[in-house]
């Protein structure tokens, strides 16, 4: 953005109407915007209203109405049934666990490839792979983990035949909290690497050198310089990863069918066949999901704006 404004031809040389309006600093958002410009932006805004905003608001509003169209809070109260509370609880646990673990592992890997003096090609390879793996979610990811840690998966069989250790007899199950968390990390860790790498690049070499000159140990550098600077980024990414896991459904669905009742799967079943026997309750479920992911994203956005100050 800024690099452009520096190179712009002065407005006096421009055709009379173009570009001049925006530089006058008019007060209302639409003042000075020409009709042609509005026509250019209008389709985008109409699309956003019709296919993003209204459908979501429609759900939010219908959460407050009963079958006969009367206002009610009963749908929200009905979210308190053990089945639904339990599904929210599992969803939140899986999302928190995979976000925290993805955050830590992603940070360590990013530190290793950026500041660990590894051979030159490794960094770009890891970054490319992260781009692929963070998009390798959904159904195929579930298949990959079934082939790895399922009952007949490669690792399961290797553990059993080589070490005589049956992970399923020891209590592990891919179709469980831990199984889902390990699987989600496959797209959470790469996402973390992609987001945190620029922040780690922002830690200047001079800071490390200055700390070392003042006699700081590596531990002291990270404790008093590195982590405090990365902290907002870490927290922000944590909330982003949380929202990412919370809304995901395809992987869990392909992995567990409907045996693990996370919120999106419950909502999926509700949309397919009204399993809760109450359309309003489905909308309330959706409202619950929107509130939780929106909160997580607001945390991310607020923290990100504050974090950007350090990384100029």
């Amino acid at each position, binding site marked *: 953005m800024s690099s452009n404004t520096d*190179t712009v031809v002065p407005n006096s040389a421009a055709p009379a109407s173009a570009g001049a309006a925006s530089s006058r600093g008019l007060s209302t958002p639409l003042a000075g915007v020409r009709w042609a*410009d509005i026509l250019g932006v209008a389709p985008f805004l109409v699309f956003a209203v019709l296919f993003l905003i209204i459908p979501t608001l429609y759900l939010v509003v219908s959460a407050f109405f009963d079958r006969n169209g009367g206002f009610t809070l009963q749908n929200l109260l009905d979210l308190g049934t053990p089945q639904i509370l339990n599904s929210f609880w599992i969803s939140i646990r899986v999302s928190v666990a995979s976000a925290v673990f993805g955050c830590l592992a992603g940070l360590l890997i990013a530190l290793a490839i950026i*500041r660990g003096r590894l051979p030159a090609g490794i960094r770009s390879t890891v970054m490319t792979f992260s781009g692929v793996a963070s998009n390798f979610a959904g*159904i195929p990811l579930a298949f990959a983990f079934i082939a790895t840690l399922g009952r007949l998966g490669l690792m399961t069989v290797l553990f059993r035949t080589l070490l005589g250790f049956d992970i399923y007899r020891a209590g592990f199950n891919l179709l469980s909290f831990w199984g889902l968390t390990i699987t989600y990390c496959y797209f959470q860790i790469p996402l973390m690497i992609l987001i945190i790498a620029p922040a780690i690049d922002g830690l200047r070499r001079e800071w490390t050198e200055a700390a070392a000159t003042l006699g700081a140990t590596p531990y002291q550098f990270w404790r008093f310089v590195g982590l405090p600077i990365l902290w907002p980024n870490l927290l922000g990414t944590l909330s982003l990863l949380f929202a990412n896991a919370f809304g995901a459904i395809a992987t869990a*669905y392909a992995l567990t069918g409907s045996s693990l009742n996370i919120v999106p799967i419950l909502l999926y079943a509700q949309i397919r066949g009204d399993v809760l026997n109450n359309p309003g309750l489905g909308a309330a479920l959706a409202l619950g999901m929107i509130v939780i992911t929106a909160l997580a994203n607001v945390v991310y*956005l607020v923290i990100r704006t504050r974090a950007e100050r350090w990384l100029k």
Partner: protein
Amino acid sequence: MKRNRAWAWIIFILGAAYFLLPLFATIQFSLSIRRGTLSFDAYANVLESPEFQQTLVYSLLIGVAAIVVGLLLVVPAAYFVRLRAPQLRPVIEFVTLLPLIIPPIILVFGYIRMYNSSSILPLTNSGLGTNVLLTLAYVALALPYMYRAVDTGLRTIDVQTLTEAANILGANTVTILARVIFPNIIVAVLSGAFLTLAIVIGEFTVASLLNRPAFGVYMQNVGANRAFEPAALAVISFIITWAAMGMIQLLARFAPRTAVLTD
């Protein structure tokens, strides 16, 4: 500094193990459909099945449609916001963030409620209408990535000067967009397009709830009914994802720059 490198190697190897083992296991599993020997039969079964071909083609078509619609919405919007209406930027950026905040399942739930057979715009009534709805849902899902790609492309060219030059030569706005701006940001547009394709091609939630014969729905069906074919499908779709992302990396080398770089 030997110690310093050791920890990096340990973390890198642990990470590599976590990411490569499932890939290796999947490949190995996909090849072991015959007892005691490796064979490509699972792949043959998948590739020869008519459902595979039909659903993949269907998803590709919907993906391409979503890319075209997405570009028609995003390119003019990003262009006008950058050139003449920077006041609208916060609004547009907020909108492009919405698909990250609203999970796909919520979005499609809203569509089903809003555009069902008894609504003003009953899109789910016909197959064509539902295809349109699916396409628009994918446009929405890809919006954050598409907008960012196009906006990044616009940042690397000198929009103002190009527009003025075209104006002086007598071009109207549509001509400027289609024949001056678009060719200049084609690389950015293509990387947005490939990212969209990577997101859309195996998408399950929306397609399944709209009852469309998409590739993701097909994969889920195979997963529920077969043992070795799902692993073959996972390998195939990993390759598709890799190809799409690889194209983006490749394209980045050809990006034109007409903006004078100040740094």
